[in-house]
């Protein structure tokens, strides 16, 4: 029992030590990035003739509630040249109908060039009012298949994959394009910070006022997103070892994605799987490349507001993580793949994939040990207090980093609420998400591949 306790303690210190290390690196990177932003305003990129055009891909399956406001928001983007391609992935609701009504689409004779294999495209529509909006109406094939269809159809060298329920900031593309402006030849993908839209005032697809939700559950996720994006992804991005670019927002170079056969339709975490496979292929080919992450809040998304939906989402994410790691297992601890093989893959396996199992095993073990009377209850209690303090400390660091650098929650009331959430999430929320992820791990082992439906309120009413 003592050895097991020791192992758990070592794991605890290792994981939290890594979190702290990632945070410190991220801190330096974010500060540096904010300083760079002082010298490169969006207006310069907007005026420049060398700014590459972007195709925005919006896969939509039963998104009649949110699709119109999402597309409207996309029309408001500050960017010199872009096209919007909505891929209606065989929706059973009236997604196509609401789009037709809002943007007056007409069917075109446009040739669909099927370079990546996809389900049948039934029709191509173009807006009569906004010629840069297209709709691909296709048979259902899943999100990855819809994205592949969008990649096939897009006419520009870069594409931006977003979720239909996401709202982009007005300057999102201008900000995310910066790494491409620096090194167009090398950069193959760029991700940005995704923020929680629940509680924000959104009108006509634009975030008018940033705020927090009335319910606690979305607010816990605000803190969680801050922690994940401001520390983890920023640091991994700087080491060119970023394994995931959120499906809610990412800009990719089309050619390398086509070169690896596009998105995989056999996984539920197509966003992560694509990025891991890009690393895998490009490193194997010994290509000089970069996958960047910009520490700028560029995209707002609705998060689950019910436990049931959160459970499904986390389950899917965990399965996606497992699948992405499993499919690219040759990179694991393989020095040929550099920092990906030796750092990122082991980290994601030991920390992100296994942590819910270890955490819940730890709780059970301490419970059993207490029941059997083989440990002092004082030892267990103080260790739990330590774990809670650590959780609070890491969450607070992220909230403070956000406050000092990005400052997206200007109201003191919101800041106090976030600080309170950073404390409160350690009592129940974290344990519940660990449980959902453990279930996801179990389902991954059982090769369960269902997507899991998540009910949306619609961004303009998401509280």
């Amino acid at each position, binding site marked *: *029992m*003592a050895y097991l*306790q*020791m192992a758990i*303690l070592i794991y605890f210190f290792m994981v939290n030590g890594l979190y702290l290390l990632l945070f410190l690196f991220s801190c330096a990177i974010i500060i540096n990035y904010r*300083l*760079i932003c*002082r*010298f*490169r305003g969006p207006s*310069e*990129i907007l*005026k*420049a*003739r*060398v*700014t*590459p055009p972007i195709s925005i891909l919006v896969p939509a399956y039963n998104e009649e509630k949110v699709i119109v406001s999402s597309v409207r928001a996309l029309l408001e983007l500050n960017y010199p040249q872009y096209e919007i391609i909505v891929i209606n992935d065989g929706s059973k609701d009236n997604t196509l109908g609401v789009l037709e009504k809002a943007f007056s689409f*007409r069917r*075109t*004779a*446009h*040739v669909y*060039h099927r*370079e990546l294999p996809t389900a049948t495209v039934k029709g191509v529509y*173009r807006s*009569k009012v906004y*010629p840069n909006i297209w709709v691909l109406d296709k048979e259902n094939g899943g999100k990855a298949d819809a994205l592949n269809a969008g990649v096939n159809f897009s*006419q520009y060298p870069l594409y931006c994959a977003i979720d239909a329920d996401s709202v982009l900031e007005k300057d999102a593309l201008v900000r995310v394009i910066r790494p*491409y*402006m*620096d*090194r*167009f030849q090398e950069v193959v993908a760029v991700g940005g910070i995704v923020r929680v839209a629940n509680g924000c005032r959104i009108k006509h697809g634009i975030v008018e006022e940033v705020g927090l939700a009335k319910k606690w559950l979305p607010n816990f996720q605000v803190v969680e997103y801050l922690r994940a994006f401001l520390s983890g992804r920023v640091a991994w991005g700087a080491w060119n070892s970023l394994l995931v670019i959120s499906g809610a927002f990412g800009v990719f170079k089309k050619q390398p994605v086509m070169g690896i056969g596009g998105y995989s339709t056999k996984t539920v975490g197509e966003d992560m799987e694509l990025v891991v496979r890009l690393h895998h292929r490009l490193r194997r080919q010994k290509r000089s490349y970069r996958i960047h992450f910009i520490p700028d809040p560029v995209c707002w998304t609705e998060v689950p507001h019910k436990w049931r939906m959160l459970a499904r989402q986390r389950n899917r994410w965990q399965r996606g993580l497992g699948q992405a790691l499993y499919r690219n297992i040759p990179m694991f601890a393989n020095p040929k793949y550099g920092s990906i093989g030796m750092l990122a893959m082991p980290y994601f396996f030991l920390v992100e994939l296994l942590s819910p199992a270890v955490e819940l095993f730890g709780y059970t073990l301490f419970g059993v040990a207490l029941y059997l009377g*083989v*440990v*002092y209850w*004082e*030892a267990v209690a*103080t*260790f739990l*207090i*330590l774990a809670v*303090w*650590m959780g*609070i*400390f890491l969450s*607070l*660091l992220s909230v*403070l980093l956000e*406050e*000092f650098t990005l400052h997206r929650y200007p109201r*003191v009331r919101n800041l106090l609420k976030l*600080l309170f959430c950073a404390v409160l999430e350690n009592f129940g929320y974290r344990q519940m998400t660990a449980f959902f992820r453990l279930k996801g791990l179990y389902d991954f082992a059982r090769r369960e591949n269902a997507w899991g439906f998540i009910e949306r309120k619609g961004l303009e009413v998401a509280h």
Partner: protein
Amino acid sequence: MTVSNWQLTFLTLSILGSNILGVMVASLVAILVATKFTAVLWDKYKRKRQASLKSLAVEFLDTGNDEAKLRLKNLRWVDALIFKAILLELAEEVSGIEQSRATELYEFSGIADKEIRTLKRSWFWWLRATAAHSLGEMRVKRAKNDLIEALGDKNIEVRLEATWAIGHMGFVDALPLIMESMSHFFKIAALRMDAFIFEMGAPALPLLLDLCKHPEWEIQLLAIHLVGEFKDPGTIEVLLPLLDSQNLEIRLAACKATGSIGDPSGLSDMVPYLEDSAWQMRAQAAKQFGINHFTPAIPGLLKCLEDKAWWVRLNAGEALSRMGENGRVALKKALKSEDRFARDMATQWLAELEATT
């Protein structure tokens, strides 16, 4: 170690860790409160000082009143910081005599010297970059050599700001040095140089044309792009031989530049490139003919509709759809083509034409 010993160690470690973390959490909250409080105080002070300093600066810019100028000498560092921001803001809005007075004030208040020192010696790149930008904005011409030196800075932002400052002050002779320092960052360099290359005007063109023949391909690429931006038909003679360069990037850039100049003789010389061995070149040429509505390229574009590369077919179809009635007739002709791909593309673009007219 016995079980109880281990548990005692475990207990001690946990208590120690908890205490340390507790103190750290409390410190974080204290830092947050202190920062918020300081920010409020700084804001108040800044607003108060801004009003008086700005009125003195504006008085001097408008009238050249030496009394106002004298009161702006030997400012405390906090006030100098606020005053610098005011001057930079004003410099963007004024021109002519007011502009020279702003520069005079910048020099007189000692800020220019400080900025030059910062540009040369500071350890922090953002301070060096800010200094370079300010010197350019305030048109401190005596800082030319320091700015040229800054083109070799290890930080790209400092180089970019120095580039802008040199360009903004119109030092055409520094162009080759700028190009050499920026060549590895094509897009960002082109973006920054687009902003001032027109201010430099005609004197910059001969230098750029020379750089189009530079041995380093990245410098060539940047020069070709900038020459294209001038849209001077006289530059075609330099660009056309580059269409046959060994480097595909150079060829594509030359094709694009020739297209953006839009001179008919240059475009005529580009027609054979619709049959180039590289599909990218065929696609780019087709695109440029479309942009320029260059009808003599129609027979070549019709052939391109049967090209094996989809992008070439797409660009050729689009180009024809932009060529008015002649293009429409050509697309209708392609409907009878034996090639299925050509027929598909013609159908697509004819439908587009129909929908838009």
